[in-house]
């Protein structure tokens, strides 16, 4: 038996080696190396000859925190995540309720249609939306003209450029969270609704006191996935507003990192951007966890009381 276990351990090492080598060398090591890169002045000269790299301490971070363009990019990214994220989650919940309603016919057809944008190439649909929002030939403005509204330069006006990108993101992504919400809705026991109905709760109250609390873990998962994804905004503005948009209103943090790192080859500076983004993503995740656990605890109590009341009837 001992011999067998030792064999198993040896086999395990061989089975794990290829995948772990890839993950450690090409994912974890670079992520850690990014931190070291961010305290150097790695630039185009260093690219030619690594001996030109010098340790500069926190200089890149100091420079970054004093850089108005960086703050603009950070504000834009947070705007995108905090406006686009909740909109996406609401659209997802709404469509999940519709698709999952008891009286809905052709459920799987509607589910497939709503999910279709998720599997499309982000670059391709960004190109489609770039024309959709075009000031002169765009379908959106032509439609607005037909119903008598003044055309808007969607991607050319600072105040409309980011909302346009948010609209694309909501369209592209709500189907993913919708699927997760449908699974969450289906896991709510029917007895809980019955209990609520017996207590005289109407549809709105059932939604507030049964559906929402029971979906708390789903909200947490969907919220984190959406926030983390949205904070990495890159392809949409890169394709729709390649120069960062009017007054840099669509420049995102990852876009700035890409430009600094791979257009100007200031890799040290760009690594500092990457690392600050990592910290922001970490903070966003922790905040959601904190928010949820207190609400979840309350909701669990509420949900349990609801079933108990129902059971006594």
């Amino acid at each position: 038996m001992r011999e067998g276990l030792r064999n198993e351990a040896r086999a395990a090492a061989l089975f794990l080696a290829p995948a772990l080598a890839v993950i450690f060398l090409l994912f974890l090591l670079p992520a850690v190396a990014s931190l070291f890169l961010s305290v150097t002045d790695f630039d185009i000269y260093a690219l030619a000859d690594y001996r030109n790299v010098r340790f500069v301490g926190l200089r890149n971070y100091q420079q970054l925190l004093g850089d108005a363009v960086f703050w603009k990019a950070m504000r834009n990214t947070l705007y995108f995540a905090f406006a686009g994220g909740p909109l996406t989650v609401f659209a997802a919940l709404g469509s999940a309720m519709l698709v999952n309603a008891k009286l809905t016919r052709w459920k799987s057809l509607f589910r497939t249609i709503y999910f279709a944008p998720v599997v499309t190439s982000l670059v391709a649909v960004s190109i489609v939306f770039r024309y959709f929002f075009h000031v002169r030939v765009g379908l959106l403005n032509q439609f607005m003209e037909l119903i008598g509204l003044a055309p808007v330069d969607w991607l050319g006006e600072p105040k409309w450029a980011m909302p346009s990108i948010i609209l694309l993101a909501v369209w592209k992504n709500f189907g993913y969270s919708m699927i997760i919400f449908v699974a969450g809705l289906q896991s709510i026991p029917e007895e809980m609704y019955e209990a609520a109905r017996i207590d005289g709760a109407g549809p709105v109250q059932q939604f507030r006191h049964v559906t929402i609390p029971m979906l708390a873990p789903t909200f947490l998962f969907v919220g984190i996935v959406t926030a983390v994804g949205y904070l990495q905004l890159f392809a949409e503005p890169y394709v729709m507003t390649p120069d960062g948009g009017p007054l840099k209103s669509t420049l995102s943090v990852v876009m700035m990192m890409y430009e600094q790192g791979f257009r100007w080859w200031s890799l040290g500076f760009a690594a500092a951007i990457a690392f600050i983004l990592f910290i922001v993503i970490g903070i966003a995740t922790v905040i959601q966890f904190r928010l949820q656990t207190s609400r979840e605890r309350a909701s669990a109590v509420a949900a349990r009381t609801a079933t108990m009341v129902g059971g006594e009837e």
Partner: protein
Amino acid sequence: MNRSFGVILLHIALVLGAIITLIPLAWMVSASFMPTGEASMYPPRLLPSAATLMHYRDLFTRMNMGRSFLNSTIIALAVTAASLLLNSMAGYAFAKLRFRGRDRLFGFLLAALVIPTQIGMLPLFLMLKSAGLVNTYWGAILPGTASIFGIFLMRQFMTSIPDDLLDAARIDGASEWAIYWSMVLPLARPILVTLALFTFMASWNDFMWPLIVLTDEQKYVLPVAIASLVGEHAQDIELMMASSVLTVIPVLVLFICLQRYYIAGLMMGSVKG
């Protein structure tokens, strides 16, 4: 409120949502068949006056899009094949082999899921550059050949395979490789389809990493090629729509045919939260 009235209202909302969801995709397809200039006419045309394939022909004959299509296919297939093998091997070890520190190692990997891939892209580029892999297929393929999510999917599925079955084979003297290859993999076929679908689509649609690592136009994958095309041919709406169709349709068809597997994987991914 009348019950049947409510049902009608429900379906009006559903159909309206479906129309809004489909308009951009339908217009993309329709405009790609329009003669040059028709997509920007006023009042807007929704269907081509006379469908033409000229933009698709242009893409292949003048824009070198056939090459990008081939590059995308090669890279996505290679990544998919490698990730099936590597992730299923690791998933098997985590699910069915007993060794010290197994659960701790797996927990550590799950914790590392929070690290966004963009964080390491700069050092990864430098590493691949010193290895001479920048601007090669290998540079685009290697980072995607194993993933924590893939290992997770495989492990979750394989845990449900009964131990007795494998132990019986061990007593008969079967090697671990034989058990993995001819017993576990056939049983894991559904999850392998799921992982293949996820990996192929993610690789086909990936943009930022290929943009960084493939610098020569001959090596461009579709998303990179069409993003660069829109810079030069922004006025040719119909041409750009054809290039978008070319990029979107293969994975869309794949998804529609195999969506059962796709949705199943999505669910498994979400329960880990």
